[in-house]
């Protein structure tokens, strides 16, 4: 291996350069390629003979237009990059191939170096001989042969690279936030406080989300309403926030910076401008309805209602399905007593069209349906509760005014069992950990102790309390005397067969620490149910053009480095839409998504990656096969011209339409047929042993050659 800084083959850096007309200016149409092979210290050079690869490229690929081929210790270093920039200027290079690490690491570095030399950055190609060669192979001869093949592929490809310019689009400074839970509220307030307009769309009658249902929040035990409601009020009164509750996004068109969003504003049957939120209508409404949403089925509301006392906005909605007037045609008690004449039985659903530049999705989660685990008896055994029901029981504004009682509404439990991981970490339901259930269950144990002094058992698989103050809270609950049984209960039953079990619920569990089966009689069981994606998560992902996992959680652009962005430019995610999260993480994500949006707004316009598909109208037969291929609805059919057309800003560059077009009328920049076919030729010009590979005699899909050189295959045959 060479110990010197760098060596060059083909054309010496100083001295006369053979074949260069004058001062490095290339002849018209002539392709002049510079090849740079990186040692990466010993990362590449330890396995691949980089000196040989560079020498070989300088000689064997001369006909392909390689005028200089160098190797250097660290191409990504300043002097390494300078080699490229200098050679472009001095040797008149018009294409660059760097054989080094993965394009995902340093493509931008070398494109920037290429641009500094005055070339279009897309005329530079980075091929990976580290991640895909030296790091994964041990046979030096084979790895060197493979490096030559990879390099030849890059050289063939770069010949077909064309200068590309990023597409520039304006950014509309308005933002749409979907979901009025704590994540959406946080995001909306951050953007609104920065001086930009936000539309906050919420499907329920009030913002607040799940957090509004909770009593206390772990581990600090501050009251959820006390910290949430001031934020709700700020969001409701902020001059920069347009609150659209009882509304749903039905359609999204457009692209980053320029989305057109259709929102269905469901009829409230109450005039929002006139209503003062005095509440007289709710008082006078004669119809009681079980509140399945906010009170989790434990309490009642009226047919005209606001979900809870601190609702924002204060304007109630009429539940058309339960309203006596809508059913029987008479009643109108609310109308009679409303001093402002704000009741509007004739109101219709409205369709609004919003123009926004960015979208934040903060639609949250659903809870696991505990009925699916029949052996725990939820829905069959009255005193088995879900965690959400228990939240309502302990809430002083809830149906029992904060008294923890059995389903009869009177009896206080003397023993309570809390079962963790219901529907989570369970192969039959959800494999993932719901992240919040351990802490939630510990909170329940504490609240039961505090409110009733009852004995509490927590049945857990593993205790997961990994965040600030969480493990300290666990210690505290242990010191308070909660009993912990490590084991996943097999069953909850009321079939008592031992003394002391009559009239009780018996939790059958294998205590894995004691190493034996136990039957623990309790009065009340609380199932700490896991979090699930929204039932309509997949339709919603499709509506906004983002992707979600098989479970239905939204997929981040990068799970670690870009957790609030999605693969769709201009669409961001915050909170539990991408997976279970506690409140601190949810709020952080709301703020982070807002920061990303503010960054976009401040730029005023942005550059889009120019990897796009375009239709050549003169070749398009109008068959429309491509129209259904695009998941982003970027392809439309121009009836007047009878051809398809692609909106470049909406196109994400996947290339499926390019491959599907039977007429070859769609060109995919950056990954054109010519580029890929040429790369295949290059990759296959070198055999496994480094010698030329024999090629079939059949002429299959020759790339459109520029005609000034033989193809590698022709060279081999000659």
């Amino acid at each position: 291996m060479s110990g010197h800084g760098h060596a060059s083959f083909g054309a010496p850096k100083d001295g006369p350069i053979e074949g260069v007309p004058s001062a490095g200016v290339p002849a018209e149409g002539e392709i002049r390629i510079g090849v740079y092979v990186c040692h990466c210290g010993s990362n590449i050079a330890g396995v691949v003979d980089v000196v040989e690869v560079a020498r070989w490229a300088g000689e064997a690929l001369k006909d392909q237009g390689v005028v200089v081929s160098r190797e250097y210790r660290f191409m990504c270093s300043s002097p390494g990059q300078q080699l490229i920039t200098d050679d472009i200027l001095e040797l008149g290079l018009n294409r660059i191939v760097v054989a080094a690490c993965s394009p995902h690491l340093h493509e931008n570095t070398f494109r920037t170096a290429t641009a500094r030399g005055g070339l279009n950055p897309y005329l530079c190609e980075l091929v990976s001989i580290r991640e895909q060669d030296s790091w994964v192979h041990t046979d030096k001869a084979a790895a060197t042969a493979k490096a030559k093949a990879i390099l030849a592929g890059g050289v063939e490809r770069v010949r077909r690279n064309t200068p590309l310019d990023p597409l520039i689009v304006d950014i509309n400074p308005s933002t749409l936030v979907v979901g009025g839970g704590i994540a959406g509220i946080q995001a909306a307030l951050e953007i609104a406080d920065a001086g930009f307009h936000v539309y906050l769309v919420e499907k329920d009658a009030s913002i607040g989300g799940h957090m509004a249902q909770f009593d206390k929040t772990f581990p600090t035990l501050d009251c959820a309403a006390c910290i949430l409601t001031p934020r709700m009020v700020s969001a409701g009164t902020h001059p920069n926030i347009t609150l659209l509750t009882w509304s749903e996004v039905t359609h999204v068109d457009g692209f980053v910076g320029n989305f057109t969003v259709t929102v269905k504003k469901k009829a409230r049957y109450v005039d929002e401008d006139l209503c003062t939120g005095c509440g007289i209508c709710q008082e006078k409404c004669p119809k009681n309805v079980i509140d399945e949403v906010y009170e989790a089925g434990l309490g009642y509301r009226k047919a005209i209602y606001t979900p809870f006392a601190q609702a924002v906005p204060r304007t109630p909605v009429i539940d058309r399905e339960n309203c006596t007037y809508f059913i029987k045609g008479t009643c109108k008690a609310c109308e009679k007593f409303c001093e402002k004449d704000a009741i509007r039985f004739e109101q219709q659903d409205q369709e609004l069209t919003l123009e926004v530049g960015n979208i934040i999705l903060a639609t949250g989660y659903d809870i696991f349906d505990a009925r699916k685990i029949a052996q725990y008896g939820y829905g069959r055994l009255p005193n088995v509760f879900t965690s959400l029901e228990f939240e309502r029981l302990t809430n002083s504004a809830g149906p029992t005014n904060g008294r923890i009682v059995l389903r009869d509404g009177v009896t206080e439990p003397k023993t309570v069992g809390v079962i963790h991981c219901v529907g989570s970490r369970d192969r039959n339901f959800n494999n993932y950990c719901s992240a919040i259930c351990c802490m939630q269950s510990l909170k329940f144990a504490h609240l039961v102790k505090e409110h009733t002094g009852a004995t509490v058992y927590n049945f857990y698989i593993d205790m997961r309390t990994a965040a600030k103050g969480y493990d300290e809270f666990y210690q505290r609950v242990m010191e308070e005397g909660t009993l912990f049984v490590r084991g996943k209960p097999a069953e909850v039953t009321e079939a008592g067969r031992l003394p002391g079990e009559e009239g009780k619920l018996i939790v059958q569990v294998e205590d894995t620490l004691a190493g034996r089966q136990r039957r623990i009689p309790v009065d009340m069981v609380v199932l700490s149910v896991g979090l699930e994606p929204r039932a309509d998560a997949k339709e919603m992902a499709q509506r906004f053009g983002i992707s979600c996992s098989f479970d239905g959680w939204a997929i981040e652009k990068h799970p670690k480095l870009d957790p609030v962005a999605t693969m769709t430019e201009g669409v961001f995610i915050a909170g539990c839409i991408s997976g279970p999260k506690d409140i601190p993480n949810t709020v952080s994500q709301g703020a982070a998504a807002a920061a990303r949006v503010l960054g976009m707004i401040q730029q005023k316009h942005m550059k889009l990656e120019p990897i796009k598909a375009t239709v050549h109208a003169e070749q398009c037969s109008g068959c429309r096969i491509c129209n259904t291929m695009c998941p982003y609805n970027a392809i439309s059919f121009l009836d007047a011209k009878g051809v398809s057309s692609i909106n470049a800003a909406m196109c994400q560059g996947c290339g499926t339409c390019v491959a599907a077009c039977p007429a070859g009328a769609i060109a995919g920049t950056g990954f054109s047929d010519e580029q890929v076919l040429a790369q295949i030729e290059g990759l296959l010009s070198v055999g496994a042993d480094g010698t030329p590979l024999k090629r079939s005699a059949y002429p299959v899909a020759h790339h459109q050659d520029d005609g000034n050189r033989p193809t590698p295959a022709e060279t081999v045959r000659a």
Partner: protein
Amino acid sequence: MSTQAPVAPAPAEEAGLVTNFEPVIIGFTCNWCSYRAADLAGTARTKYPPNIRLIRLMCSGRLDPTFVLKAFAEGADAVMVSGCHPGECHYIEQNYKALRRFQLLQRTIEALGIEPARFQLVWASAAEGVRLAGEIARVTEEVRALGPLGWPAGDIVDIDGVNLDAAWEATGGDEGGPPESPGGVNPDHAAAELPAVEALP
């Protein structure tokens, strides 16, 4: 420089048998999942046979069937396509389109006389470097067992025993243009095929 010294051919090689056959495989990978899985295999130094050469596409949905046929024609012994797992496509659902094309194309190549095992589809997420490396090793061994594709292996003869390679060369081969004379070719066939040959590019 570091190439091995020439070795006298083994008796089996002299007899025309291939020994120590090293297949060359072209792998098409998706920019978001399988290419990143390959990067991850590299970062984790997970070893796999050096027979595969990867091409990056933005999505497995970009795979034009022509690319696969081109690779076979250029001398590849096998082609591997790799994309995101079903339901996890970064372009929402384009890997399903790749799957459909794959199934159709596999039947087509089988009809052309290429073993289906020479064209394989492998799902790999960005986190599955070890899985991708394992699949590459598996495909390599399967293709090694199949032997070289040799497409075409020697002269191609049609059902009447006419040497099509010779006929093709007689037309001027790849260089195009009609032949001076159809010498050596069954005159019936030559007459029948000449107009078609003229129409070739």
